[in-house]
């Protein structure tokens, strides 16, 4: 270790790290360690000047190993590996110490956080000294893509991919394409017809020579890895018998969308009991048919729209469903066009008009005499049947927040703006393609800001409302981004994958075959002649199960060797 020249860089992350961790002290502690030639503390290591600092130190001081004490390696390890590569050093000669997510963001006791940061830095220094130069492997990229979900996001992604020349398998669970957008009449805020928009997409998808649509389809299994997945799809033939096909794809886009909140769960709105309390999607159906009327077949005199049904409510879903406010304003507009002389009241919590054109739409709609009533999140209105003498079917009691008064308003039709929820099968889909879900069941993206399209499983992308509530433009943007990401990879033909895999030392292997059945990827083969096991590196995903199980210690996990982990243990306890 003494003959090594290790550079240690302590990132302040602006003040994100430096406000709790004494970064200069961590750098100073680093400079005292054997083998450390340079130790610096700097404002932003991931910035261009930060990376250039590493590159020029390597050139000028002949550094051969680098430690960056900064954020999570899940965030910037690729960045620093690239910097090393640029400097002509093997990219695996870098190790990160996670002193932001694991120190400054979770501890407020500055001395304790600094001590811990030093310990993590020491572990990284000891570890990096034991790193080996590894060569990245490259695999063929199958140009075909599997798209799960035939809504607006799935269809858009499929079209972009297919237009660029790639084969797409588009699997839709229901018997038609279009998803939830197919249930909508006009779209906010420009009042364009959803049907017109969809028809264009639908016709092109169905007629496209490179898109195979599987309706009433299920993806039963996705095996393999980025570039070389195999997907087992079950569809139906003309006699509606199940037909199974297996296809090879390089990438997968999950665009499974959302389900609407079940309004029955909020009992004081009377949905399911009062016949004229309907959901937003039921109103869409009326609007599409061009007839807004009560169950009794009469045009309503009073319509009330209630916002945030199942959304922004800790009892149900704490998040905002993003589309309901504008949709409610659209309803106010559409109902007035459909029913002469109708009174519309809009009962809301806050008016979220965040998108392009939304604020103008809010202003325009509020000018056409809609009665706006604000209620408090924790104090939602109550709907009840009207008394026989009243000139309306129902009465809604609202504790109006702005006036501070309890107001009773008449209604013949109550529209509940039901929010978005993760689909019931989201857990199954997550397992299928090996991605994670957040506490609400939405799929988790690789990075919430910088990589909202990829997931933690390489080759699996997410698009549309399966990630979180989204409107049409955002879903389309994410779908096109996912398609773009995949096309960029396809155009290169081959894909570089991590250099980590397990290796068997045949001299040590006793041929016991314990590892053979342990491997979830069937990546270990037994050579009957030599009576030794060996790893097929292209299939190995480097989980290390075989390494820990080998009774002869004959298997090494590259980049996670026993020596490297032992060094880390020593380092954190120094």
């Amino acid at each position: 270790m003494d003959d090594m020249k290790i550079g240690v860089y302590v990132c302040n992350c602006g003040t994100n790290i430096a406000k709790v961790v004494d970064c200069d002290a961590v750098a100073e502690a680093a400079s005292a360690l054997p083998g450390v030639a340079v130790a610096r503390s700097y404002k932003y290591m991931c910035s261009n000047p930060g990376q250039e600092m590493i590159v020029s130190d390597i050139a000028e001081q002949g550094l051969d190993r680098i430690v960056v004490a900064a954020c999570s390696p899940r965030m910037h390890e690729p960045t620093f590996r690239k910097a090393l590569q640029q400097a002509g050093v093997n990219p695996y000669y870098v190790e990160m110490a996670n002193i932001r997510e694991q120190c400054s963001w979770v501890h407020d006791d500055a001395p304790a956080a600094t001590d811990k940061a030093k310990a993590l830095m020491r572990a990284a220094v000891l570890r990096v000294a034991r790193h080996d130069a590894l060569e990245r492997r490259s695999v063929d990229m199958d140009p075909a893509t599997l798209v799960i979900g035939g809504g607006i996001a799935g269809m858009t992604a499929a079209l972009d991919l297919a237009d660029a020349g790639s084969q797409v398998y588009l699997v839709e669970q229901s018997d038609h394409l279009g998803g939830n957008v197919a249930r909508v009449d006009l779209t906010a805020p420009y009042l364009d017809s959803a049907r017109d928009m969809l028809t264009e997409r639908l016709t092109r998808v169905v007629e496209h020579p490179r898109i195979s649509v599987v309706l009433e389809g299920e993806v039963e299994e996705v095996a393999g890895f980025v570039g070389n997945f195999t997907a087992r799809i079950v569809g139906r033939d003309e006699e509606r018998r199940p037909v199974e096909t297996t296809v090879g794809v390089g990438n997968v886009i999950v665009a499974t969308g959302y389900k609407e909140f079940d309004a029955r769960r909020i009992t004081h709105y009377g949905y399911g009991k009062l016949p004229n309390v309907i959901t937003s999607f039921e109103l869409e159906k009326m609007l599409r048919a061009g007839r807004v009327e009560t169950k009794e077949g009469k045009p309503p005199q009073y319509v009330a729209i209630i916002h945030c049904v199942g959304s922004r409510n800790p009892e149900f879903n704490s998040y905002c469903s993003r589309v309901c406010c504008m949709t409610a304003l659209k309803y106010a507009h559409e109902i007035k066009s459909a029913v002469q002389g109708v009174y519309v009241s809009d009962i809301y919590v806050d008016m979220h008009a965040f998108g392009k054109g939304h604020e103008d739409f809010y202003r325009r709609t509020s000018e056409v005499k809609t009665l706006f009533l604000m209620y408090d999140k924790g104090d939602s209105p109550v709907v009840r049947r009207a008394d026989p003498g009243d000139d309306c079917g129902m009465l809604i009691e609202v504790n109006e927040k702005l006036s501070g008064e309890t107001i009773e308003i008449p209604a013949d039709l109550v529209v509940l703006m039901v929010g978005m929820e993760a689909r019931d099968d989201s857990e199954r889909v997550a397992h299928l393609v090996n991605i994670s879900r957040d506490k609400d069941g939405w799929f988790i993206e690789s990075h919430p800001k910088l990589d909202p399209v990829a997931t933690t499983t390489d080759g699996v992308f997410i698009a549309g409302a399966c990630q979180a509530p989204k409107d049409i433009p955002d879903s389309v943007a994410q779908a096109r981004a996912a398609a773009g990401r995949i096309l960029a990879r396809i155009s290169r033909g081959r894909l570089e994958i991590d250099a980590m895999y397990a290796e068997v030392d045949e001299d040590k292997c006793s041929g016991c075959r314990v590892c053979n059945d342990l491997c979830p990827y069937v990546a270990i083969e037994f050579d009957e002649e030599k009576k030794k096991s060996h790893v097929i590196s292209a299939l190995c995903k480097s989980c290390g199960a075989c390494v820990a199980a080998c009774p002869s210690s004959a298997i090494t996990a590259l980049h996670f060797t026993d020596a490297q982990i032992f060094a880390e243990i020593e380092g954190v306890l120094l």
Partner: protein
Amino acid sequence: MTFEPKIVGFLCNWCSYTGADLAGTSRIHYAPNVRIIRVMCSARIDPTFVLKALHDGADGVLICGCHPGDCHYSEGNYKMMRRYPLLKRLLADYGIEDARVRLEWVSASEGQRFADIVNDMTERVRELGPSPVQRDLISDAAER
């Protein structure tokens, strides 16, 4: 001065390490006693890692993996789960108290759960006091 235990955490890359990162991005505060070592899968955790940590001065060892059924490598956590009782039996023979070594499942979305586990474990190990391994090592050295 109260005794501050040193705990080594072995966390799988896909669920638990990401869960710990989430605790960070969510600014969930917890005790600073656990030092995390990342492994790709809990199945990679060789029982000798735990023994080495205890030998080198850890007062406790926390092992975290994906929830059963959620493993990135489909079943690695089950391998850890099967290995764990054997390890615990060995540790009991060595006189190492049960609460010092702990196996927990933490998903990528359970930042709060990770913080709660760290706090709880830190508290329990603090109550136990310094690891008997260190005491024994010192007395062994004195005898020699």
